[in-house]
């Protein structure tokens, strides 16, 4: 276990290093002159020179990379081109909104997806099971922005049940929650379907295990076997998946934040990319992928703590 842990952490560090390197050199991948791309063709030479200096583009490339790396380690991601605000502060302001959105989305998915999956597995091949199966696939294949747009159209434009814009008044929990419902629902759809399928499959698999047959042979009631013995083991892969879910919801939040005009990390990156504000893009992408990698790492490691039977030797296959 320890050697796996060290290896897994080592890999994470390598991957984070490589992705940071990739982001640091992002600006140099632009065909042509990055400053020209940023300022547009009408920029005067003096403007170009100023921006070049601000970005450190007048220094040799290895030095620029080193600057970026030492900056990252010190928690300094550079500053916004246009407003000269530190990127870390901008991210710090946006991140809580995205985290709340992702947690709410995942919470909704757990609340609906897991019971659906359990019910389907307990009543396989009934009509509820079949409908759940089809609805799960439908939810999984439905793009988050289509879900968002349709929810917006239906519940905020046609029937004005929920607000369409912003995060609401932060000092008023009811208002904040009302602003959270539609966006988190749009974000949750995929994971409702996904969790329902996953839970159903793993419960059905566990029900085939020998210890379940033994439990039945001992004459334990169906209800007891199902809810006490089967479910406990069946839920493990699902709980471990939640880390990955958190990561993917953080990444997917961008569409929902744009559609519902919510401030957040996704929205911040969207605006930055639209205005070619590279330091903000770079910082935003770095923070998002760090969270993503971290969530995946936690998901991986949580397997062990939840299920000591799992061996780690074969996981890289």
């Amino acid at each position, binding site marked *: 276990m320890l050697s796996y842990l060290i290896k897994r952490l080592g890999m994470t560090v390598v991957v984070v290093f490589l992705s940071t390197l990739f982001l640091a050199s992002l600006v140099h991948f632009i065909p042509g002159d990055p400053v020209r791309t940023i300022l547009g063709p009408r920029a005067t030479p003096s403007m170009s020179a100023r921006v070049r200096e601000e970005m450190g583009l007048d220094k040799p490339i290895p030095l620029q990379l080193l600057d970026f790396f030492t900056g990252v380690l010190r928690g300094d991601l550079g500053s916004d081109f246009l407003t000269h605000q530190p990127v870390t502060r901008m991210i710090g302001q946006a991140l809580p909104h995205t985290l709340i959105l992702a947690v709410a989305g995942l919470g909704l998915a757990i609340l609906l997806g897991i019971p659906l999956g359990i019910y389907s597995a307990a009543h396989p091949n009934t009509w509820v099971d079949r409908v759940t199966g089809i609805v799960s696939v439908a939810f999984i294949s439905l793009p988050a922005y289509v879900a968002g747009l349709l929810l917006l159209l239906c519940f905020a434009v046609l029937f004005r049940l929920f607000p369409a814009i912003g995060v609401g008044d932060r000092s008023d929990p009811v208002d904040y929650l009302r602003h959270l419902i539609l966006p988190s629902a749009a974000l949750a759809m995929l994971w409702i379907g996904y969790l329902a399928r996953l839970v159903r499959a793993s419960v059905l698999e566990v029900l085939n295990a020998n210890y379940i047959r033994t439990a039945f042979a001992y004459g334990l009631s169906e209800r007891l076997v199902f809810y006490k013995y089967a479910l406990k083991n069946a839920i493990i892969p699902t709980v471990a998946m939640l880390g990955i879910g958190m990561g993917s919801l953080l990444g997917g939040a961008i569409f929902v934040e744009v559609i519902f005009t919510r401030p957040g990390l996704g929205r911040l990156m969207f605006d930055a990319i639209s205005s070619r504000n590279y330091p903000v893009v770079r910082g935003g*992408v770095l923070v998002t992928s760090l969270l993503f990698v971290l969530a995946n790492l936690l998901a991986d490691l949580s397997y062990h703590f939840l299920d000591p039977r799992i061996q780690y030797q074969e996981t890289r296959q």
Partner: protein
Amino acid sequence: MTQAAPAARASVIPRPHVLSDLARRPAGVFGLITVVLLALILAVGPLLAPYPFAKQDVSHRNEGPSASHVLGTDHLGRDLLSRLLTGTRIALGTAFPAVLAALLAGLVLGLVAGYAGGRIDNLTLIILDTVQAFPTVVLMLALLALLGPSTRNVIIVIALTFAPGYARVTRAQVLAVKENPFIEVERSLGASGMRIVFVHILANVLAPLFILLAMDLPSAIATEAGLSFLGFGVRPPTPSWGVMLSDGFSRIRTSPWPVLWPSLALMVTTLGFTFFGEALRDILDPKLAGSRRA
């Protein structure tokens, strides 16, 4: 339906009962019908379009469905049905090359990594891990910010982000196949490494890749439309479904139709392709397909 049947059978997998198996699954039937309909629209769609997709009818702007404009018009008085039909071409014409390129890139990468093993394998895995360390949408947007928005760049970006999936599947298959006695026999007969990889191993790894391709098409379609919706993909006035959504979204309070139709088109298309892909996968269990000939 009958026209497409031989093509569908011949193109993917050499097994005789695919279509009859498919027909026994309601979701599979829905998937098949959607795929065939989309193929038809792809072939003759522009002929069905009542108007040129960019024709503006200024006296009929933001209108609901009517006799002259079956699905209504957008903010410039353009016929939504015509745009939707043309958009089908954009959606499939972007998604298919993108997924195919991802498959080819992933295939080569996976074959090399799996067969060579050792350092090359480890290096490939690190690259794959790095690409997959970014949330997909975020990576795509970062790349498009560099490359600039265009249809070609969307194809490139989708191919790049989808390729690791194919590489992993290929690599795993190669690892499973490469220790088989028949490979050893080939080697002892003096076959070159190239021949072993590209003739013998390749034949054994293709089937699961095609199933993955069928399953990836809907997400590629959704990705293109999503990127175009955000303004980083296909550029207006080309009527990608994403561009239509973006146009409709900014005027969602004026008229619901410009958002509604492309949303429904995307829903039906992604769902149809997903059902189709899943039915294919269930029927042609990739494990069975791989071991049958191995």
